């Protein structure tokens, strides 16, 4: 626990020591707020956060691979991984420290977007509980992307390849949550397989919780999804020790 916390603190600090945090954060805010306010703030429209949360999946898809690509690949390139892996810390603690730091940074960026609901609240009525719920859901959703991106970053020392791999796999996951494709697949594959494929897509779960209704089953899903990729990540580190 203590070790995880030390890793977490250093990682979180590293976001703010490098320009990445600022460039990423500002770009993210500009893109999200611009498009969301286009539809939320026009005259006569309802005061709703729906456009904002509807936009997040696609924005995460584009932005998060770029944020997570360096997490392990950079350590390997610089050789600092040799320090990390010879500290008296378990691989799982390293993985968890890095993961939670990335989540904390994203939580920080999401908090910065609170300006949007606050503005909407000033001009119209806004129902806060579902908004808070949807923010929590967005963080869970982002977490699942971070877990995927971090896993790919542990596989290669080349950041661009890590980014492309996570981008590619997130697109596949996106497609699997897309009703049209699922219907198409249903004609080819047995129903069990189609359900399974559809079931692993984070997008399928995002929609329901983005409306602000948090179901325990959805939370369990996200926990399992992240857990799977984080475990795979720790496994990659272990194999590295073995193969050199």
């Amino acid at each position, binding site marked *: 626990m*203590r070790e995880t916390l030390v890793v977490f603190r250093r990682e979180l600090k*590293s976001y703010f*020591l490098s320009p990445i945090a600022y460039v990423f954060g500002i770009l993210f805010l500009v893109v999200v707020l611009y498009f969301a306010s286009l539809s939320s703030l026009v005259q006569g429209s309802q005061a709703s956060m729906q456009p904002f949360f509807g936009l997040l999946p696609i924005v995460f898809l584009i932005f998060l691979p770029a944020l997570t690509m360096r997490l392990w690949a950079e350590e390997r390139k610089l050789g600092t991984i*040799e320090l990390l892996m*010879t500290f*008296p810390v378990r691989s799982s603690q390293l993985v968890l420290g890095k993961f939670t730091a990335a989540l904390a940074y994203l939580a920080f960026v999401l908090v910065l977007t609170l300006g949007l609901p606050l503005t909407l609240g000033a001009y119209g009525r806004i129902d806060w509980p579902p908004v808070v719920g949807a923010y929590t859901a967005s963080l869970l959703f982002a977490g699942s992307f971070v877990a995927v991106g971090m896993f790919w970053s542990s596989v290669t020392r080349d950041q661009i390849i890590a980014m492309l791999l996570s981008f590619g796999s997130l697109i596949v996951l996106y497609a699997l949550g897309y009703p049209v494709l699922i219907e198409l697949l249903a004609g080819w594959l047995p129903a069990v397989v189609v359900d399974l494929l559809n079931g692993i897509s984070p997008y399928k779960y995002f929609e329901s919780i983005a409306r602000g209704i948090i179901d325990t089953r959805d939370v369990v899903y996200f926990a399992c999804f992240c857990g799977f990729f984080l475990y795979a990540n720790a496994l990659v580190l272990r194999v590295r*020790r*073995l193969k050199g």
Partner: protein
Amino acid sequence: MIEVERLEKSYGFARALKGISFSVQKGEVVGFLGPNGAGKSTTMKILTGYLLPSGGQAAVGGFDVVEDSLEVRRRIGYLPESTPLYGDMRVDDYLMFCAEIRGVPRGRRKGAIQRAIDLCGLERVTGKDIVELSKGYRQRVGLAQAIVHEPPVLILDEPTAGLDPNQIVEVRKLIARLGAEYTVVLSTHILQEVEKSCSRVIIVNQGEIVADGSQEELIKSLPAGGLIACVRGPEAQVLSQCGELLPGCPVTVLERGANAVVYRLQVGSGSAPVEEAFARLVVKNGWDLLELKRERPTLEDVFRSLTLQAQLEAMHA
């Protein structure tokens, strides 16, 4: 402190370590010497828990590197090859991070960091970002990081690689100072480094240990060198007398001076003390003996004779 037995490591089909065994006692400063690619770094990476061995055993402080990896890592300070550091951190922040993650108790951290800073001469740069530092200072930060938690064992992989001559002298002094307190294993392919800093030398070549002992022992193991004698007397007579009376020691002329000649007598390892016989010869013939000394083989000779020979054999095989 360190026990290694039949340690093996393969990368794919390449066998980097072919079953090496050695042990290091508490307080020793051991130099791992070998040409590039001999298996020095691999050994160190296994001892520090970065890599798992493919076979054999290694233990540090009684803990197995595979079974009790965390316990081993708690007892070790490590400076990896090429000194990786987090460039975006300040020196003091970085040392604090290392102290925290190494489990130095909160109350002792400040003192531990100060001690590392003092020992490594980092006072002037504590507030600087690591990226701004010169190679020499980076190396010192790497060493400070390795000792901040006061580990009983220090493992330093090529601690002076890439430094300029002044920096090398500085880092060597530092290692000598650390050697008084810690058990140190350092690897290098620079011979002077071992001659200056280490009490014991292990020479590795192509994944095997080819020599292990103190410098004196290793030098003695070489066939004794020659006998160098500077004599004033007729050269032809000296040569013929030596040839007659010291048949086991072929003589050559090394240098002709104004009134004396320097000779070298090849001495076989089994031959009787040649100094006395030669001195008697000089007295009998009434020559003047200006100088008489043994050639001293250096560690470099040991190293070259052990590693070159193996390389040549490998090339012919």
